[in-house]
């Protein structure tokens, strides 16, 4: 009865809010006030439970991979799209998608949890499975120190009931895995995703950045993780699963997404190997081969702005989101600059992080051979100063993004283009670009 009441209330609020042109989180707010247990009840009724995805970087794309791989296995998935990863957004989405009896038409929920707001969520809902990706250094002005962020992620791990997937190559995340294994009271099983030794130097960790160096100490060969990324190519990768190698093409862009694909594979393996929760008819075949999963992975496209490719003036334009030194460095390493006109747009709005210090930890010398056409954003001059220190020539600086985009377009008419941009710069540029060419709706 309570479910019925909350579902109907939420749906009514949503109708009214829509008529008034109001925000999407309002029904979530109202239902939460009236019935704080609603979300937990609705989600815990799902046959495969709740999968939480957290970490500082790559949540959106990794969540998308997990969702699409599970959907390819015939499961109906409830998820929070477009990074509305706060509980009210999740409740609002649940209200929208459930029936008036409060039943969510889904088999499993895969939810991206912002590490700061996850606490609020796990107080209400215990994830059955959790994937922890990384603790990178962006947004430290919001969350304080890396160690603090790691503690928040530890609490998500502590709340997880059945299975935890951790990044073996991220020291702080790997330690969370160790501590979880050592838990005395009903520890969840712990799996790891990782890299072959040969690939370690391609993915320097934040610890390596502290040293200002890229070399990674040679170490002895280690046992394979649950899923190990062992080879990288251009839109191609080899994953080792259960001692067997799977070579696959990928539509995803960027090296980090390829590494996160190993995370998604391990998580989906865990979910599909788990039994349906008690009280549910096992109407789905959970027999999924590794081959099937890799095939499903090959079909996943990047989430918006995460290595997205548009066509402008008949030539490709890549949008590459950069939020921290590791990500920017990987972005530079992922895409060959030869023959491509490059623009960089750096904003320091709240959602980007206000602190621009991290630009000094990125090595831009790979752009020196051909220079950067246009630099833009609220911190365009900081970026220009940074490039000057690496002897990278800058064509023009326009703080205003539309001016910059116009200038960039005019000076690069016969070339493919690439724009490295922070989050809010990305949103603004997509909007401008939507008037010039076809831009997909936000995932």
């Amino acid at each position, binding site marked *: 009865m309570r479910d019925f009441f909350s579902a109907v209330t939420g749906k009514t609020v949503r109708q009214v809010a829509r008529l008034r042109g109001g925000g999407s989180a309002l029904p979530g707010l109202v239902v939460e006030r009236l019935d704080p247990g609603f979300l937990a009840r609705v989600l815990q009724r799902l046959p495969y439970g709740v999968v939480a995805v957290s970490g500082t970087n790559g949540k959106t794309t990794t969540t998308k991979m997990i969702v699409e791989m599970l959907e390819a296995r015939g499961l109906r998935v409830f998820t929070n799209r477009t990074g509305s990863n706060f509980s009210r957004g999740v409740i609002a989405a649940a209200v929208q998608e459930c029936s008036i009896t409060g039943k969510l038409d889904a088999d499993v929920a895969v939810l991206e949890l912002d590490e700061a707001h996850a606490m609020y969520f796990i107080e209400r809902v215990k994830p059955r499975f959790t994937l922890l990706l990384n603790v990178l250094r962006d947004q430290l002005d919001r969350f304080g120190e890396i160690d603090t962020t790691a503690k928040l992620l530890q609490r998500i791990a502590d709340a997880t009931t059945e299975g935890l997937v951790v990044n073996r190559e991220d020291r702080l995340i790997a330690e969370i895995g160790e501590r979880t294994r050592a838990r005395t009271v009903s520890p969840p099983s712990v799996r790891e995703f990782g890299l072959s030794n040969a690939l370690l130097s391609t993915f320097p960790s934040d610890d390596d950045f502290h040293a200002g160096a890229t070399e990674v100490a040679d170490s002895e060969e280690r046992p394979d993780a649950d899923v190990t990324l062992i080879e990288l190519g251009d839109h191609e990768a080899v994953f080792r699963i259960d001692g067997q190698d799977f070579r696959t093409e990928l539509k995803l862009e960027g090296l980090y997404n390829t590494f996160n694909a190993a995370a998604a594979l391990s998580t989906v393996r865990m979910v599909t190997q788990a039994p349906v929760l008690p009280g549910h008819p096992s109407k789905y075949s959970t027999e999924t081969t590794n081959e099937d999963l890799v095939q499903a992975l090959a079909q996943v496209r990047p989430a918006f702005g995460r290595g997205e490719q548009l066509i402008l003036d008949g030539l490709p334009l890549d949008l590459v989101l950069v939020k921290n030194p590791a990500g920017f460095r990987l972005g530079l390493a992922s895409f060959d600059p030869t023959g491509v006109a490059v623009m960089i747009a750096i904003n320091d709005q709240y959602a980007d992080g206000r602190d621009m210090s991290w630009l000094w930890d990125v090595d831009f010398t790979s752009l020196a051979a051909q220079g950067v056409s246009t630099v833009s954003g609220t911190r365009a001059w*900081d970026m220009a100063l940074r490039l000057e220190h690496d002897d990278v020539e800058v064509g023009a600086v326009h703080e205003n993004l539309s001016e910059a985009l116009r200038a960039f377009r005019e000076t690069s008419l016969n070339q493919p283009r690439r724009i490295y941009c922070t989050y809010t710069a990305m949103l603004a540029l997509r909007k401008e670009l939507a008037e010039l060419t076809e831009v997909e709706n936000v995932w």
Partner: protein
Amino acid sequence: MSETPELLIASLYPRDMNIYGDRGNVLSLARRVRAQGFAPRVVDVNPGDPLPDEIDIVIGGGGQDSGQNRVAKDLAQRADSIRALAADGTPMLMVCGLYQLFGHRFVTHTGDELVGIGVLDVETRGGAERMIGNIVLDSEEFGEIIGYENHSGDTTLGSGSRPLGKVKQGAGNNPRDGVEGARSGNVIGTYLHGSLLPKNPALSDFLIGEAATRRYGSFTPIAGANETVLLARESAKRRPR
């Protein structure tokens, strides 16, 4: 054959104390040294490494509490050498974590005490408030200093140190005193990173000038501020906290 005169920069603990782009300070100082007509030589000093023999400038950054524990031990062992260099007039710039350890002590928010080497007459406590944001200082000697602060350490100055500058926008050493940083002789401690030196060539020139005068007897600057620096300063000043 005339060789370019060299200046040796000792970079303290770049492995542990380099969290907010502090590497940018080393990069920028080396570039400025070159622009002023000297050949920079940067030597990294990590825990256990020997200090180079002829140090002209010492520079250090900030880290997390965990890294700070590691370097505090190492720093204590070379405290005498560093104090001697400071007493002798060697210019030094210590940002954030090493600013704290160059003071008398740092008491963390959990009550642990890290003993510093006392080159600067300051004391720091882990505060409840995190002071974050774009910051602008006024300094008689260096003019306007522009940076970004991000610290919870609450620092107070004793009579043996004077502030680096007055806070025009931002928090500074603590939320009460309205000043930022500390100076004793040619040693500067500050919470400004962001990075500090690229946007504040006046500070680089101070370090270079003192170093060159000590080693070569005189210093005549040949490089002024460039336009990119001026515009980056202006844009940073306009940004909100």
